[in-house]
């Protein structure tokens, strides 16, 4: 089995290196095909591993030593267990599909080969992240995906906004990574190891405050990657990257790494339910917060990004409440339909020549029939309509909140579900229905390549069946590792009322969205100039706030540090000392006027001074020795 583990892990790396060989040369579809092929290999290996794990085994290998110093011993160790295999499946499926899709999507791009190199490198990093058997190995992947995300967001590096967004994403993630490092430090100095099995078996012996700190710091780390408030602004800006990237990294896999971390560290979070509650509350807040921003946005990709953010909030609610398997399940289901949504958006963008404003589209149903079907499917899944994936995963989280008696969280999440449905279908309606507004702009949309649609098809299938088919086997598998808690509302009446009520609420939201946007778009100037609209449209003014509060002061402070402190204080002090000496020389050089008789006089003065010193020292010395005697 180890060989499959290595294949699953290193096939993407091979693909990346292969593509990198051609990075500087003109486009060759070979790179795309080879990279996709290798990813498919990885996927097949993952499936084999899944089967193996389903049978109740786990694979644990230690490839080689990485860092060993003092008592610290960190190997490159990989583990395939019930949790990581789920992530592996998600990553390999989505990435294989995205790779194949990208062959078409990036068809006309100069950086075609480079793109595949980055994308496969990302998959490798993600695999390291999920498969590692220790915290630092996870951190490798953690930073690796950060790097690839930076590369891919800034893929079109000639665009100022893209590079800016890339840097923003990287730096924000770094802030969180620091917290994560600190968390790792605490673990090491208290337990003496970073291996999951050792840490989790000994964590209960630690004093409560330390566990709490570990939990908090690790979660801050997770917040960065999963773009939770207040580190969320990068995710929306990250949409500057190519759309397949958004699908893979900023929807399906990387951003869910935070959730994965919390799930993986469940023995720690189990001991600190207070922190869990905080996580859940923050998750609920983010779910709502992001959904509201998605309501009014006019950028197709940003809307989906906010939706991702919102769904991540859901996952954190589940994880925070101790329903780790639910969180992971939603992670999986969400990966499928959100990736699908993004890929569909990619098709639309292609057709619309990179136009992102849905208000300039409309009526694309006809020329882009399959895209329409797939995107609608994904949106339905996202909205959580029975029997699609979202229903099983998302509504389960609602149930969790209810069962755990966090009614406030429950109501927030319920409201958010409505909002989700609304903005998803607002988007679908604006794009695919109504007037063909794009004709004014002289664009004649066309459907994407067939193989791109074929590539998307499996995701469509998964979005439909993932919930229904996978739930039971999934539950049975992961509960080997994760706490097996069934969340059932025991009162049947309540259960049905809730389920049907939620469904109706969501359907109503969908209907409202269609009604408002499917026919003709009326721009209500009054609403748009209103405070609330502006607040939401400007993302609660948070990016501006950050700019004013952090970026600008930092820039100013840096300038100040350089121009004022470094040059005018520190360096000037040094030069000042040198100048004093130099000036003394300048002043006293009149002493050396070359006149020998005055030199002789100076000599005698020197002699007198020396004599005085001699006397002074002798007297002083005698005084000291006298006292000593």
């Amino acid at each position, binding site marked *: 089995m180890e060989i499959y583990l290595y294949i699953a892990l290193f096939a993407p790396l091979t693909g990346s290196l292969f593509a990198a060989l051609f990075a500087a040369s003109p486009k060759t579809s070979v790179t795309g095909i080879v990279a996709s092929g290798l990813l498919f290999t990885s996927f097949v290996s993952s499936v084999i591993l899944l089967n193996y794990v389903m049978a109740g085994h786990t694979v644990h290998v230690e490839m080689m030593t990485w860092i060993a110093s003092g008592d610290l011993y960190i190997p490159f160790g990989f583990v395939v267990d019930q949790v990581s295999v789920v992530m592996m499946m998600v990553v390999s499926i989505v990435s294989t599909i995205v790779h194949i899709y990208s062959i078409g999507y990036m068809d006309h791009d100069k950086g075609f080969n480079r793109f595949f190199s980055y994308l496969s490198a990302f998959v490798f990093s993600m695999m390291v992240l999920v498969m590692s058997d220790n915290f630092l190995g996870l951190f490798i992947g953690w930073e690796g995906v950060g790097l690839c995300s930076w590369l891919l967001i800034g893929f079109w590096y000639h665009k100022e906004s893209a590079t800016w967004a890339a840097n923003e994403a990287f730096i924000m993630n770094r802030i969180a990574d620091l917290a994560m490092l600190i968390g790792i430090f605490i673990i090491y100095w208290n337990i003496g190891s970073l291996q999951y099995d050792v840490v989790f078996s000994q964590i209960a012996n630690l004093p409560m405050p330390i566990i709490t700190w570990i939990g908090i710091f690790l979660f801050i780390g997770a917040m960065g990657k999963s773009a939770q408030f207040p580190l969320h602004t990068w995710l929306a800006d990250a949409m500057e990257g190519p759309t397949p990237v958004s699908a893979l990294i900023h929807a399906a896999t990387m951003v869910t790494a935070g959730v994965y971390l919390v799930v993986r560290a469940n023995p720690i979070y189990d001991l600190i339910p207070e922190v869990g509650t905080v996580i859940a509350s923050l998750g609920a807040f983010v779910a709502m917060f992001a959904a509201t921003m998605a309501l009014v946005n006019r950028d197709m990709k940003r809307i989906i990004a906010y939706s991702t953010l919102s769904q991540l909030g859901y996952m954190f609610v589940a994880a925070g409440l101790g329903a780790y398997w639910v969180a992971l399940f939603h992670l999986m289901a969400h990966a499928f339909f959100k990736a699908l949504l993004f890929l569909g958006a990619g098709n639309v963008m292609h057709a619309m020549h990179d136009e992102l404003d849905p208000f300039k589209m409309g009526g694309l149903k006809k020329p882009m029939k399959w895209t329409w079907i797939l995107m609608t499917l994904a949106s339905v899944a996202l909205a959580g309509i029975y029997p699609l994936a979202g229903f099983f995963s998302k509504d389960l989280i609602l149930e969790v909140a209810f069962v755990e008696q966090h009614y406030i969280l429950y109501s927030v999440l319920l409201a958010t579900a409505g909002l989700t449905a609304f903005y998803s279908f607002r988007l679908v309606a604006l794009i695919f229905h109504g007037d063909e507004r794009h004709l004014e702009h002289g664009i004649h949309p066309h459907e994407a390549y067939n193989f791109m649609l074929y590539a998307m098809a499996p995701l469509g299938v998964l979005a439909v069946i993932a919930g229904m088919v996978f739930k039971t086997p999934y539950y049975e598998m992961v509960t080997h590792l994760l706490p097996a808690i069934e969340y059932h509302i025991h009162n049947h009446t309540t259960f049905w009322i809730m389920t049907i009520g939620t469904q109706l609420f969501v359907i109503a939201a969908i209907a409202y969205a269609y009604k408002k946007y499917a026919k003709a778009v009326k721009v209500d100037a009054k609403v748009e100039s209103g405070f609330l609209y502006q607040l939401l449209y400007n993302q609660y003014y948070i990016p501006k706030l950050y700019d004013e509060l952090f970026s600008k002061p930092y820039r100013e402070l840096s300038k100040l540090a350089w121009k004022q402190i470094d040059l005018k204080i520190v360096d000037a002090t040094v030069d000042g000392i040198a100048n004093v000496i130099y000036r003394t020389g300048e002043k006293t050089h009149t002493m*050396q*006027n*070359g006149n*020998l*008789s005055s*030199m*002789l*006089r100076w000599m*005698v003065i020197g*002699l007198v001074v020396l004599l005085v010193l001699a006397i002074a020292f002798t007297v002083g010395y005698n005084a000291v020795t006298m006292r000593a005697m």
Partner: protein
Amino acid sequence: MEITLAHYLVLSSVLFAIGLIGVMRRKNLLMLFFATEILLNATNIGFAAIAHFHNDLTGQMFAFFIIAIAASEVAVGLGLLIVMYKRTGKIDLDIMTSMRG
């Protein structure tokens, strides 16, 4: 009343001071040489006195070497003076300003 080492040393320092005054006062190089001879002799007295009162010949030895140095100094110094006189026609200290910093 007895003559002690201190007497000699005081005498020596008084002579030394006279020599110093001479060194500072004189501008004529030849006169300056005289003053340096006084300085050397002053120290010689001190050395001889210490040698006597401490029953140690080292002091005398020092004085002896100092005399030797004084002699060589005069020889070389006068030679230099002559060269200088040939070049400038003067042996005045104030004209030697080539060491101006």
